[in-house]
């Protein structure tokens, strides 16, 4: 039982990164209709940017987070200019190939610049003064500060995003675009700006996930491959374009994986998600939480 709780918490930590990556992916799909296969590379770049900020620039945690958010958002803007802007009048399949190409290019650029060795982000107590005063043992569950940071940041960022989507004009125009882009355009929504905001937000969320996760696991050039696939799993489970669905499904996938590796075997851990996703795609094409949409 004690171990079970520990697995649950571990799963929620990993699941939180899935949420951060998947929410951006689902936003980009839901609002712009772009399937971004290069989303995992935002995560990878976030990881390296975090290491640069903490190690080379010697920044404390909060400024480092701001730095990573800014770098990732800029990468997101560049991706928008490459993947979305020139393709606006084409069918959706164009972005499949070009975002796949962008992913391959970014991974190999990272391989050349950073080398293949995995790297770690060293977040010691001196970097996070407030957090390091919290306890790390909660009954039978052990939760180091670096790990604790991940769900905390996730809740803060996703909460903020939800509030923005719900209560601000920017959020309203984003949601209007998701509902009907032509009508939104006619109502004066500036589509170009919405596209930029969406990509920047999605990339920033994934970048933060990459930064925080590389203090627990490692970052390497092709780390984004697996993360992107997991995020796609989550997005499909949650219903394409559904932010709340992605948040729930992300935590769920993290927990399922953690339990699978604990009680089944570690090597099936990465496969279980894909098996679920293929099943969901075949039998529940709108996802677990998706609304069924009628077409005539």
């Amino acid at each position, binding site marked *: 039982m004690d171990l079970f709780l520990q697995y649950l918490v571990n799963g929620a930590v990993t699941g939180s990164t899935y949420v951060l990556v998947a929410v951006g992916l689902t936003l980009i799909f839901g609002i712009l209709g772009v399937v971004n296969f290069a989303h995992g590379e935002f995560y990878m770049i976030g990881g390296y940017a975090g290491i640069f900020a903490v190690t080379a620039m010697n920044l404390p945690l909060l400024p480092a987070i701001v730095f990573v958010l800014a770098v990732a958002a800029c990468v997101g803007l560049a991706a928008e200019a490459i993947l979305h802007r020139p393709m606006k009048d084409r069918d959706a399949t164009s972005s499949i190939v070009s975002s796949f190409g962008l992913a391959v290019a970014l991974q190999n650029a990272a391989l050349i610049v950073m080398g293949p060795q995995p790297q770690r982000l060293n977040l010691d107590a001196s970097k996070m003064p407030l957090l390091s005063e919290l306890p790390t043992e909660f009954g039978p569950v052990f939760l180091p500060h670096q790990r604790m940071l991940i769900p905390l940041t996730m809740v803060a960022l996703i909460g903020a995003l939800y509030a923005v989507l719900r209560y601000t004009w920017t959020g309203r125009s984003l949601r209007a675009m998701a509902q009907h882009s032509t009508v939104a355009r006619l109502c004066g929504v500036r589509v170009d700006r919405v596209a930029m905001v969406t990509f920047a937000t999605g990339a920033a969320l994934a970048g933060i996930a990459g930064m925080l996760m590389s203090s627990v696991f490692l970052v390497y050039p092709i780390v984004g491959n697996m993360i992107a696939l997991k995020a796609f799993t989550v997005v499909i489970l949650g219903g394409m374009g559904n932010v709340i669905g992605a948040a729930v499904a992300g935590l769920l996938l993290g927990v399922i994986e953690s339990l699978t590796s604990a009680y089944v075997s570690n090597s099936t851990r990465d496969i279980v998600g894909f098996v679920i996703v293929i099943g969901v795609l075949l039998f529940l094409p709108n996802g677990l939480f998706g*609304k*069924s*949409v*009628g*077409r*005539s």
Partner: protein
Amino acid sequence: MNTALLEARCLVKRFGGVTAVSGATLAVGEGQILGLIGPNGSGKSTMVNLLTGETVPDEGEIVFAGEVVTRLPSYRRARLGMARSFQMLRLFGSLTVEDNLVLAGHIRMSAGVIGSALNSQSARSEEAAARTRARELLSWFELEEFASRSVTALSIGQQRMVEIARGLMSEPSMLVLDEPAAGLSPPNVDRLILLVRRLRDEFGISILLVEHVMRVVRELCDQVVVLDAGRKIAEGTPEQVVNDPLVIEAYIGSGWKRRAQA
């Protein structure tokens, strides 16, 4: 009462919370031209999709050529002799006019795909026969000069004719025409009326005609079914349904009376 070639009983189709078709029934007799009309959003398109097999009904039964086809995919219905045209023109844009027709003739070929890949004698002669038939049909429609052109080079009216010619390639017993007069100029509408009548009289094809243009319905249809909000609200000859108070009520505000008298 002649026997029905296509019969739909109590069809129901829901999309999420919306019931697009609720309990509609219709029958197309052999050699009959049946009109299917109704205001926008009355469920005509859904009805056509159910009858041709693009969607499967939640309830009800469809019988075509003596077989229950309720859940058969559209290609199986096509093989039983059902052909259709589309409301929004649909042709294979990367193929020539002739190839568009020949493809529709594939289902009448007996050599399998293996034989065709091996280029067997029988496959080649069948292919040649299909090409001849495509040319014949095109000349019947006065389109033979466009045979080897891309379909995108044709006008809307000509593309509609190609769609109907494509339907004939498979030697169907039933043709479903989904708003064939949409986007046609008045002289072309006249041509369409003559043509559809000839299809029935010369080829003996039964026709289900979904149409907005009342002139076409009045001149062609033996019998008309009126849908409103997914239900059948009237059935009868064109004259009868036009004067039916229920029908008039369903159309009020959409200019029915005016159009009916035009």
